[in-house]
């Protein structure tokens, strides 16, 4: 980076006590709010933080100015680590980073006049020797935010929403900070007051060289204000970078959903109709952190990648299902090897009883004979593939549906393939079994929606494993596919197509299914 960062966070974590689960005696258990946030802000830069309610954006803002103390990670301001500084050593630094709060109604003392409110930081930090000196500075600050000195004699309730927010800004810049965190400061305002406040922020940044962290749920506003943006979901930064680039081509499905949801002021009669049927209902989403997962076929390839990704995202326990646990080396104390052959339906019933705490089921086990339908052994190949891919998955869903229900809903991830949507004749019987599994997934989804279970269909292109090496390149990395699947669980996406091949094919199918079918038919069994 050319310019040294003014503010830098690395692996920033935050836990707060969860008073809703506090026992009658003893401390409230901690709940994790932020799961390792990395960001950097240069002097004079603007960084937008977007996400929905509960995404952790306000907690992040408060942690950045040390209103909360991070549980772990590094937080440096101007090269100095402030993550663990005690309050008495933080105090001399505080004038340099200030916060503007969301609701001026509750952040301005209703019993104080505006002039007192704005003068308070000046008094606390001894920046004004006399009362008249303080008043002179206050008048200058009020003028700075386009209020008249007469406003200083009023009480907050006598002001409009936009005026109150100006008072909050005047107070925040009173000590000439280098960084301001603005938390949803325009969300309660109408368009014109909002535009005024944003114009004011722009002026202040230009004149005072402020760095700004701008927290908002409104991506249109963030686009207007910020150079860079962080998209938050469940306490994680799922995407960050240059505002223009991310808004032009968002990579994470959650960012895309946020952007698509915004009604732009253009007439578009089809907009409402394009709200997909499954979007009309409340989205089911699930936090991978603190989940108890069961992965089938966990000893290699994508299954092993799933186990690693789950551990990385803070699953408390992972049952690693595999045909035989002989020689399996547990990668982490949280992993429980589980002998489970998905073609053995009696064993599946036993497993469902043994693993009664599962909240996330990953049906990854699959079989592929890699032969065309014209093969001599096609009947047997097809049966073997159906046994694992279809009947195995079905029995797992049947047995674990009630377990997930008992644990509050949870999620099922079914590892399918882009070949669930189109047949590659080279491996025709395999594709048929994957198509059947997709149909099964849709049925399971419809049935389990009522109990609040999210059912995700993952349909990647060929993956770089032993099973995928017959397929035309490019091959997806197992870790990327597992990561995309868990993103989908957290964002509540029901069908995902990881990788460029799968995404392209799915778009092609939507545009012209016959053309795609013909193209695939060209890969004839050799």
């Amino acid at each position: 980076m050319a310019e040294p960062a003014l503010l830098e966070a690395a692996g920033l974590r935050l836990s707060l006590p969860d008073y809703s689960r506090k026992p009658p005696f003893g401390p409230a258990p901690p709940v994790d709010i932020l799961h390792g946030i990395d960001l950097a802000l240069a002097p004079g830069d603007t960084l937008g933080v977007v996400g929905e309610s509960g995404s952790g954006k306000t907690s992040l803002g408060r942690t950045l100015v040390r209103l909360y103390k991070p549980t772990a990670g590094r937080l440096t301001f101007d090269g100095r680590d402030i993550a663990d500084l005690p309050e008495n050593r933080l105090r001399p630094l505080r004038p340099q980073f200030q916060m503007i709060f969301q609701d001026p109604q509750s952040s301005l003392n209703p019993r104080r006049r505006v002039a007192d409110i704005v003068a308070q930081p000046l008094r606390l930090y001894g920046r004004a020797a006399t009362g008249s000196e303080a008043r002179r500075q206050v008048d200058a600050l009020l003028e700075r935010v386009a209020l008249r000195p007469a406003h200083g004699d009023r009480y907050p309730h006598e002001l409009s929403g936009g005026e109150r927010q100006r008072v909050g800004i005047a107070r925040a810049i009173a000590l000439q900070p280098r960084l301001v965190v603005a938390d949803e400061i325009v969300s309660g305002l109408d368009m014109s007051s909002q535009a005024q406040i944003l114009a004011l922020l722009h002026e202040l940044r230009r004149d005072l060289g402020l760095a700004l962290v701008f927290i908002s749920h409104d991506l249109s506003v963030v686009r207007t204000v910020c150079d860079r943006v962080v998209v938050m979901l469940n306490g994680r930064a799922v995407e960050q970078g240059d505002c223009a680039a991310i808004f032009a081509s968002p990579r994470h499905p959650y960012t895309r959903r946020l952007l698509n949801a915004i009604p732009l002021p253009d007439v578009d009669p089809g907009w409402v109709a394009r709200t997909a049927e499954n979007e009309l209902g409340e989205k089911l989403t699930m936090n991978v952190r603190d989940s108890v997962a069961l992965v089938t076929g966990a000893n290699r390839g994508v299954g092993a990648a799933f186990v690693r990704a789950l551990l990385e995202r803070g699953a408390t326990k992972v049952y690693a299902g595999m045909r035989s646990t002989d020689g399996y080396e547990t990668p982490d104390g949280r992993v429980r090897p589980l002998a489970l052959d998905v073609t053995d339906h009696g064993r599946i019933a036993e497993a469902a009883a043994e693993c009664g705490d599962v909240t996330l089921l990953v049906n990854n086990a699959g079989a592929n004979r890699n032969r065309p339908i014209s093969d001599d052994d096609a009947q047997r190949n097809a049966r073997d593939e159906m046994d694992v891919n279809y009947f195995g998955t079905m029995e797992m869903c049947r047995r674990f549906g009630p377990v997930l229900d008992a644990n509050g809903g949870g999620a099922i991830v079914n590892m399918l393939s882009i070949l669930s949507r189109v047949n590659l004749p080279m491996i025709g019987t395999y594709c048929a079994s994957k198509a059947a599994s997709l149909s099964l997934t849709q049925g399971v989804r419809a049935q389990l929606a009522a109990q609040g279970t999210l059912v995700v269909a993952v349909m990647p292109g060929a993956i770089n494993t032993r099973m995928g090496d017959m397929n035309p390149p490019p091959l997806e990395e197992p870790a990327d596919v597992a990561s995309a699947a868990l993103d989908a669980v957290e964002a509540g996406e029901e069908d995902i197509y990881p990788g460029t091949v799968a995404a392209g094919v799915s778009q092609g199918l939507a545009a012209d299914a016959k053309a795609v079918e013909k193209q695939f038919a060209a890969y004839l069994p050799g």
Partner: protein
Amino acid sequence: MTATPPAVGPTLSVRDLHLAIAGRRRDTPILRGVSLDIAPGEVHGLVGESGAGKTMIGKAVLGIQPSRARIAAGSVLFDGRDITHLPERERRRLMGRGMGLIPQDPMTSLNPAHRIGAQIADVLRLHLGLDRAAAGARTLELLNEVHIRAPERVVRQYPHELSGGMRQRVSIAIAFACRPKLIVADEPTTALDVTVQRQVLALIKRMQAQEDASILFVTHDLGVVAKICDRVTVLHGGRVLETGATRRIVEAPGHDYTRALIAATPRHDRPGGLLRPVPEALTARLDAEALAYDAARGSHG
């Protein structure tokens, strides 16, 4: 003055409505001669900044304006019938089957002490005279229609146990429960996250189309207007500045103020830069016009 309404007249017709809040010394005018018509099945947007009087129009239509508010002149016609000064008893009969409300904040309109199911069933029993079993069955049906996933569970829950989006779905179910001809939606999505807002807008539009109801849709968001309204009325200082088809208003606004509102609306699909707030000179001009209007009215009594 009142002409006989034609065979298929507007569902709602607000005629030259003047409303003022009574003060100790003098009255403060809030609505200054507002007129608008909403045809059957029309979604009519009412846009303006805070203080423009848009919420007050909705309240006056429903007859729930604050007691200090005085309708000084003008009338509200519902289905051709003058309901401006309807007595309380007749007004109550009109609610439910005639009109419904989708409020801004369902937390304040739902009773926190009653289960969701009972609150919907009460409306059905009161206005439609359904018995307990029929009301219970229809309640489940309504929750299904507003895409609530597990209605059997939700009917037993209390408002605070639901998310904001779920609560707004319940409000929509209540508003449409008795198949009213007109719904007043007062900033129904302002408090929601964008993704939930899109779902709720789609739901309102779908229910409206299915029931062929008219909607008076109060909002400050031109984006929302552009997506779901057939016609729009732009309001400032309690005066109608212009009215027209949504496409005309958004693409070829006739009033400077409408143009200014559009320029003040941020868009994520355009490069960042400064938004232009409504120019102060324009606001001052409009305020002066409003005062001149008051003066002219006052002079001829």
